């Protein structure tokens, strides 16, 4: 079920209504049933697939805790990891690996029969796999007590607002909330409603409007003007941010209505002044997951400079592959790995700090320039993220670099149209939140200001947004 669907508009009030009149134990069962309906709405078979690793992980965690010997703990951890990664590997990467292996064999002059399976990718498989791995690993590391109540555990995995596209909740944060009596207040409801409204504005009001403009230019870059390709790249950078952070805002907003807090996932990433700062603000639940369960176990920065860079690159390459079964995603991750390594190198050699020190007086000028530079570095990587193939990515990049003049697809208007207006409103909202360091600043204003702002956002969503199309969220495919 999509957050931006009519079905969800009916589903949520029913689930909330039931939730508010039940006691805690019954609330948990109610949320579980609601989550099963929400997920099964796409395809009920997905529930079965989700059930297998979930039940295995539940028992593995209990066995890890009960095991007296370290070797035994490790064995159960391996069972869990192999189950999760095998399912993820098969459903998401089987054809990718077969295809890649075949290409290598072709290159070395050994072409062979290439099996291809039509595999349906279960929605949100990458998210819930990471979700479950973190639980079992935390129990293995003795950082978490395993949960005995199966209903609570199932809710930890299946809680519908975050099930298909995160934030990738940590058990240490979410499980205690599911175990105790939850308290819903008007403050929760107001914050939740505001987050949902902002989320819908980002998704329906901005992302879905930019989506068709971006789509055609990424499919046929050879038919577009270079200036249009550049603008479409800016649009995609905004689209993916609005699509994904819009989803997270709605997810966090819905959770608040249930008295449950989910982790902040985006913190104005395009206001980052360097690439490290960007990754502290972009998809925070994934970047911290990769840090805690991949980068640090690989050795982090504890084994010398070279190994630190290797670990950084490996983490980002695998982070890229997590997004999709395509080498373009690996390149996307690799570019970010290179950026992060370069930034780390410059910081370690004191280049950046000395430069920053000298121009401290010009900080008010330098900071915006750094923001613009970081944005462009990130935007460059989005070409590989969005293009379906290296060939398309190359045509796209070439079109911009050569400032292609041919245009059979109608040219875009840089400073007009609804896209510009909607982006301007988005920018204003982000600026106010960023400067005030308060995402819910609107709640601190009088009811007239609030009512007016909410009304304007509603009107913008309906009058200019993509309300006619229930466009799925981009991250559902990952």
């Amino acid at each position: 079920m999509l957050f931006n669907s009519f079905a969800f508009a009916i589903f949520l009030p029913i689930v909330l209504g039931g939730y508010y009149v039940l006691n805690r134990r019954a609330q948990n069962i109610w949320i579980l049933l609601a989550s099963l309906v929400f997920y099964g709405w796409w395809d009920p078979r997905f529930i079965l697939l989700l059930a297998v690793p979930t039940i295995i992980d539940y028992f593995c965690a209990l066995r890890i805790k009960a095991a007296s010997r370290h070797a035994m703990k490790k064995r159960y951890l391996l069972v869990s990891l192999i189950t999760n990664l095998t399912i993820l590997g098969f459903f998401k990467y089987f054809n990718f690996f077969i295809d890649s292996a075949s290409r290598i064999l072709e290159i070395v002059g050994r072409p062979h029969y290439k099996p291809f399976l039509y595999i349906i990718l279960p929605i949100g498989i990458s998210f819930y796999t990471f979700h479950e791995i973190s639980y079992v690993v935390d129990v293995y590391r003795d950082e978490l007590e395993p949960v005995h109540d199966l209903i609570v555990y199932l809710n930890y995995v299946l809680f519908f607002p975050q099930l298909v596209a995160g934030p990738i909740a940590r058990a240490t944060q979410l499980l205690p909330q599911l175990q105790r009596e939850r308290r819903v207040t008007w403050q929760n409801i107001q914050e939740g409603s505001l987050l949902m409204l902002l989320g819908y504005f980002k998704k329906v009001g901005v992302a879905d409007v930019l989506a068709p403009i971006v789509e055609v230019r990424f499919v046929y870059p050879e038919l577009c003007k270079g200036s249009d390709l550049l603008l479409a790249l800016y649009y995609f950078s905004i689209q993916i941010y609005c699509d994904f952070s819009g989803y997270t805002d709605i997810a966090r907003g819905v959770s608040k209505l249930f008295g449950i807090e989910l982790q902040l996932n985006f913190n104005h990433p395009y206001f980052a002044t360097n690439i490290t700062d960007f990754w502290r603000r972009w998809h925070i639940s994934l970047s911290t997951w990769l840090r805690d369960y991949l980068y640090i176990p690989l050795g982090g920065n504890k084994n010398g400079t070279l190994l630190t860079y290797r670990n950084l690159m490996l983490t980002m390459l695998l982070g890229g592959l997590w997004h999709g079964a395509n080498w373009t995603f690996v390149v996307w991750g690799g570019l970010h790995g290179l950026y992060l390594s370069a930034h780390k190198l410059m910081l370690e050699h004191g280049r950046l700090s000395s430069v920053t020190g000298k121009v401290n007086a010009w900080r008010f000028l330098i900071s915006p320039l750094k923001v613009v530079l970081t944005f462009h570095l990130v935007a460059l990587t989005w070409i590989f993220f969005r293009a379906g193939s290296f060939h398309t990515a190359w045509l796209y990049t070439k079109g911009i670099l050569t400032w292609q003049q041919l245009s059979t697809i109608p040219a875009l208007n840089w400073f007009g149209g609804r896209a510009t207006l909607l982006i301007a409103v988005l920018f204003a909202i982000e600026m106010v939140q960023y400067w005030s360091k308060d995402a819910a600043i609107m709640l601190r204003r009088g009811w007239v200001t609030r009512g007016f702002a909410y009304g304007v956002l509603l009107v913008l969503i309906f009058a200019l947004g993509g309300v006619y199309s229930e466009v799925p969220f981009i991250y559902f495919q990952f």
Partner: protein
Amino acid sequence: MAESILKYLSSIFSSKTVSAIGRVPRTFVLTIVLALLLFAIAESVSRSIVRKVGRRWEYWDKIAAVKFEDYRALVSSNAGPDIVIIGDSTAARDLDPRSMATGHFSGKEIYNLAWPANFPLAFRITTLPLLREPYQAPRIVLASFTPGSFTDNPRVDEFEQEILKSTYCQHVLGHYSFADKFFLPRLRNAMPFLQNKPDEEFNELRKNKGFMPSEAVVEEYRTTDSGTRASQIVASRFDVLIELADLSRQRKFELYILIPPVSPTFAAPTADIYQQYLALLKTAQQKYGFTILDKRHSDFLTDEYFTDGIHLTRAGAEIFSSTLPREFQSAMQVNR
């Protein structure tokens, strides 16, 4: 029994959550009321404005709205043209009604109802209904499609979907969404039709009687196919032409199916699909009795008259269109 049911219910229901929520803060209520009031005002204003533009807001393109709704207005009031040109871009861009209105067609009303990428599956939704009851039927219908549009070509499908996804097509198909309950979303598409001074593009289209000449020349596509080529014409697409042919018999209009010209250097790579198309047309012709105008090879149309492999320049379209009345005349004589 009742007691055990009550006991069970009291074991799952609780007023704790509702009590914790407490009374609704007055400012929250006022905020929501003000927001909804603003929305309601905007919605009412939209309703009063949008009603004036009829269905034109539903279209995938404002020019398409003018083209199709102008035609609907004509045939609704029994003032429809004698000859209607329908099909995809090979009709919209290559057939000029004003150049055609000479010789045998002199004094005849001709209207170009074709639209770029209006490939068979989209054509079935956008155009066929306008040829059916209760609308006035034309005397002659000239249909032109690029043969490749009858194959399962991803690019054909993609362009076609752009039209099929439109609110207009969705409504024709009987698909209505939650957004249809509101008029605010219609406002943006309705705006071009609300201005006092008509859009210059609308005037141009009306002056050209629906003809939409190509302006851009794509050199590399004069010789190579612009899309992923598919090799087989599929029945699900060709059936749309059968529906058209069947309709021509029901509504008693003369149907001419034009095989559009291709640039000389583009002919070889598309020869196979052309042969399949021609063979299928000939088979259908025996049953339905329409006329095939095979203009694939037109000697006078050299490469410079093409913007790409299959579309003519404005000059090419004017010359080509002016030759068609003679072709019709000969075809009619043969038919008699």
